[in-house]
């Protein structure tokens, strides 16, 4: 099967198999210099005011564009995992990602204003800081910071590998940009060079500019991405002769499942070998196609994207850093336009992709780079344009890593070093601790990636659903519920986290039988009653948060008054 499809590709000339020349490398190098320059600019902006608020929170000065374009979940996955899913399963993926239609409103409209206020009232710089001061409980702060360290470490280590691999494959002559988690491809010197260049760049600009450097590079990359996607959208539609043609051709290249729910599953590309590892098939499902999105998962993902975005610690921090309520309001509609211009076009591009490139066995993650090359190959300067489109995943990975570096380092310095180890630390000591912790986290990530992790995308999904199930309801309680107690919040955090974790452990260690639904991966959860673990995590988190709070002693009225009541101090407007 494999051999046949390669011949097909070579024969019909539609799939460029050649390499991309110097375009991608030039684009990446430009990108690296731009990021370092942004880091230096951020460094200057951070000099004002106190080191901690400046370095870790940009002096609470984020404007609407910065908040809108950087606060929501957008990582390497946007350009690798997601397009691959559209290419593989078809139009159903539009429903899978459909929750994004309300993400701008939910992301800023539910917690935004109140969180920004609360973080000012408490002087909080980090999310654990906020819990600690809002509830007057150092224990709660410590538990929150341990959970954040856990989830973000998983996330970071996965992203480092992605960054290194993009670098490696951008070398001319490396063949194709393969972002696939291809365990069979040998790692060579190019991977290590890629890892080194990637790590040094990210750490350098993050060390220079801290939070602002992370935000600004993120913004720069988001804008670049938007234009890249627009160019690619028109180029793809032009090449295929309109969306109607694309859908029809994609349909003939696949089967009816491609245009209907629960999604297309090509048995030939199917699940026998995943990431180099055979997946045992159950006797009863040999002939049954995989249901990519049964009703239960459609409901699950409409919740995952929305509430995962609201509850992610990196997103919460950005809201805390926003300058004022005008910024939050404007971010809502800026982001809604932006999302509309990214996700629907990406879906259209990948459907065109399936029409133009009938098969990509085992390399569906390459669909966006391949479309970039294919549609621009006859243009003057096409290789450089393609290079910039290819730089988008690299930029997405880089900015994700730098924002996690900031959150991780702020966790270590603020929530552990300053709170527990050395409360009297001087600004110079804090600065040194911040740099040291960032370098430490970076070195650990490099060490882990010398023999890199598999299951990149699945790790990201796990960390983001896990952290949302841990923090979302506690954050809601902190913002809006006077009666919430410390034991209640602790119970809510821990039970949400444990639920998600145990459902994943059941799936990963194959204690439960393989369910033929959802995305195909070895790092799979057990979908209890066919629902995603996130829903079960939220259910236990909400229940235990409410029940335990009501069963325990109400919080001190003086503390609550400080957090909820009109402040006694004169307001300035």
């Amino acid at each position, binding site marked *: 099967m494999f051999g046949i499809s390669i011949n097909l590709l070579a024969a019909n000339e539609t799939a460029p198999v050649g390499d991309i020349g110097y375009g991608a490398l030039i684009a990446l190098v430009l990108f690296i210099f731009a990021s370092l320059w942004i880091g230096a600019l951020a460094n200057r902006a951070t000099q004002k005011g106190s080191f901690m608020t400046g370095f870790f929170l940009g002096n609470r000065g984020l404007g609407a564009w910065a908040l809108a374009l950087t606060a929501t979940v957008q990582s390497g996955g946007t350009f690798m995992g997601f397009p691959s899913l559209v290419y593989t399963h078809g139009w159903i993926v539009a429903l899978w990602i459909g929750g994004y239609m309300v993400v701008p409103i939910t992301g800023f409209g539910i917690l935004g204003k109140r969180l920004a206020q609360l973080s000012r009232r408490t002087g909080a710089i980090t999310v654990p800081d906020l819990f600690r001061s809002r509830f007057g409980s150092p224990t709660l702060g410590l538990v929150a910071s341990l959970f954040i360290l856990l989830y973000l470490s998983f996330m970071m280590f996965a992203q480092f590998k992605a960054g290194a691999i993009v670098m490696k494959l951008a070398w001319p002559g490396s063949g194709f940009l393969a972002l696939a988690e291809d365990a069979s491809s040998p790692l060579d010197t190019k991977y290590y060079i890629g890892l080194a260049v990637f790590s040094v760049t990210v750490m350098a600009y993050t060390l220079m500019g801290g939070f602002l450097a992370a935000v600004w590079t993120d913004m720069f990359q988001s804008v670049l991405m938007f234009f890249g996607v627009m160019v690619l959208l028109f180029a793809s539609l032009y090449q295929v002769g309109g*969306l109607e043609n694309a859908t029809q051709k994609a349909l003939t290249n696949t089967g009816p499942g491609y245009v209907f729910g629960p999604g297309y599953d090509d048995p030939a590309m199917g699940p026998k070998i995943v990431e180099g590892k055979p997946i045992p098939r159950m006797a009863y499902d040999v002939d049954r196609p995989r249901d990519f999105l049964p009703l239960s998962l459609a409901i699950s993902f409409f919740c995952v994207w929305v509430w995962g975005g609201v509850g992610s610690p990196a997103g919460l921090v950005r809201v805390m850093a926003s300058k004022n309520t005008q910024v939050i309001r404007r971010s809502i509609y800026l982001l809604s336009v932006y999302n509309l211009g990214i996700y629907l076009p990406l879906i259209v591009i990948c459907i065109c992709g399936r029409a133009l490139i009938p098969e990509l066995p085992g390399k569906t993650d390459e669909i966006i780079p391949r479309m970039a090359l294919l549609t621009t190959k006859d243009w003057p300067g096409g290789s450089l344009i393609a290079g910039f489109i290819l730089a988008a995943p690299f930029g997405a990975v880089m900015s994700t890593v730098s924002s996690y570096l900031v959150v991780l380092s702020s966790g270590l310095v603020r929530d552990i070093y300053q709170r527990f180890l050395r409360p009297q630390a001087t600004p110079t000591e804090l600065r040194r601790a911040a740099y040291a912790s960032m370098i430490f986290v970076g070195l650990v990530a490099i060490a882990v990636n010398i023999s890199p992790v598999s299951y990149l995308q699945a790790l990201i999904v796990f960390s983001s659903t896990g952290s949302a199930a841990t923090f979302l309801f506690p954050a809601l309680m902190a913002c809006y519920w006077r009666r919430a107690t410390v034991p209640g919040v602790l119970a809510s955090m821990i039970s949400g986290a444990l639920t998600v974790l145990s459902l994943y452990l059941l799936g990963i260690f194959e204690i439960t039988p393989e369910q033929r639904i959802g995305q195909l991966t070895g790092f799979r959860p057990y979908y209890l009653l066919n629902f995603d673990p996130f829903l079960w995590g939220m259910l236990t988190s909400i229940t235990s948060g409410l029940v335990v709070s009501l069963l325990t002693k109400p919080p001190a009225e003086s503390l609550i008054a400080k957090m909820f009541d009109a402040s006694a101090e004169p307001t300035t407007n």
Partner: protein
Amino acid sequence: MSDNTDSVVRTARREALLVVGIWLAAIVYAISTCYRLGYSRPAAELKLVFGFPDWIFWGVVMPWVLGAAISWLFGAVFVRDAHLGEELSEETDELGLGG
């Protein structure tokens, strides 16, 4: 709820409830429409609207565009601006937690 509750808390809570309502409306509409029109139909019944399969157009694309319009209305008109309060100076630890 005490009468002294800060106005930011009150408006934020009201806005949050409205947003949850919008989310509920979106999930119910999108999923029921897609499920009714788009699951397990024979390929011969495929109808396209602007090149999108009809169920994707009515179930995802249309509400997405509408969602952007609602986001604008919500952000530009409904959300109240408010003063968020002054930054606590970092060295003061009002709660006396020894931080």
